[in-house]
């Protein structure tokens, strides 16, 4: 456990040597979301309808952007060998890495999401649902993505696998999350969607690390 915490801190410090390193991820979400009004025009009520989906798409993009770095660099420079041989179980190592990945992608999204919401004229009732859905959804994205990243390491046709295994898992998350936010926006209860999301979250955190660790061991053979 202790070792897992060390790994977590280590991974974070690799990404954020000093505070200014957080400027980049946060600025990224703002910019990425800025593209939408630029593309479709600034009509408020239109943006309001788009807001949930687009904020979520940006979150997904952010996750994907940092993903392949999660294991690929470690795989190529030999660090993964050492992690597999470290006293902590590889499953824990995966969780630590996922946590670090989330802190440097999912968390910044959550922090700026309200701001983006304002820029995108998100309905006032939507904000709470948005934050909850992000809190539940982005970790799920990270952990599922970790599995994808691990699988693509070993397999020669990794890309195809990625599409077949990982994307189908992303779609429901995006759907539940956005419908939760839109529902809240229209004054309906987001709860059912959020519960489904929560289920995904729990299942993901509980099961995926084992699959990911197995994939990593296979890649190291």
């Amino acid at each position, binding site marked *: 456990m*202790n*070792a897992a915490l*060390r*790994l977590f801190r*280590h991974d974070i410090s*690799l990404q954020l*040597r000093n505070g200014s390193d957080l400027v980049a991820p946060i600025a990224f979400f703002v910019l990425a979301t800025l593209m939408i009004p630029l593309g479709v025009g600034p009509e408020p009520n239109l943006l309001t309808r788009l807001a949930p989906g687009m904020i979520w798409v940006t979150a997904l993009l952010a996750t994907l952007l940092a993903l392949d770095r999660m294991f690929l660099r470690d795989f190529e*420079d*030999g*660090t993964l*060998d*050492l992690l*597999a*041989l*470290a*006293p*902590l*179980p590889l499953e824990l190592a995966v969780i630590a890495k996922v946590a670090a990945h989330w802190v440097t992608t999912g968390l910044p999204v959550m922090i700026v999401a309200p701001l983006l919401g304002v820029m995108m004229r998100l309905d006032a009732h939507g904000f709470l649902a948005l934050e909850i859905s992000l809190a539940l959804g982005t970790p799920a994205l990270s952990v599922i993505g970790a599995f994808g990243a691990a699988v693509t390491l070993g397999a020669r046709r990794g890309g195809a696998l990625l599409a077949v295994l990982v994307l189908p898992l992303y779609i429901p998350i995006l759907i539940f999350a956005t419908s939760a936010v839109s529902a809240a926006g229209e004054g309906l209860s987001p709860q059912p969607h959020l519960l489904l999301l929560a289920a995904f979250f729990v299942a993901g955190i509980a099961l995926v690390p084992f699959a990911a660790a197995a994939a990593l061991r296979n890649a*190291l*053979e």
Partner: protein
Amino acid sequence: MTSGAAHRFAGVGLACRRSERLVFAGLDFAVEAGEALLLTGPNGSGKSSLLRLLAGLIKPYMGRLEYDGTPLRDDPARQRDVVVYLGHQDAIKPMLTVAETVRFWAGMRNQAERADAALAAMDLTALGDLAGRFLSSGQRRRTALARVIASGAPIWLLDEPTVGLDAQSIVRLEAVLASHRADGGIVIAATHAPIALPGAATLNLTAYDARFSDEADAA
């Protein structure tokens, strides 16, 4: 677990497969506390493969590993505790300093306090604050060796430890290996360059060269 005193590390009828290729088969070895084993053989004979297998990165295709007579397959955690591995790659992160790197890996094994001594042993104290990106090849290798020294594990598996080291560093390394063995540690190293391992047994991989035969494949 962290004490230097290793007892007996042995392999019985080991065979190793890399993808479709059988690298070696029917390999037996045994190393007692304080002993050293030198792996030799031409390029591609399977030295690195054997070391990865001993480390637990590759599962034996046939045969088994034993530590004090108990098979390690049943107890991978044990294997991770007693074994430390130095591969061809140094696992140096460009943005981490030498000291940070060694401390991190020592910390992963709860040996943080050993880090400084290990740095000194490889004459890295002065370079402690240099970022990995700025290291010369020998400095990188020495950092990786410091990681091994700091691990406190009894069994050291070293894949060409002297690569890139200058003469002085090689002497230092040999001293470290000697003292590790004096403490009852075990050293298993693969190398092409001559390295002083007094009284080390040598294992030439060419003797265990093997191929899949079609029948065996079908059987």
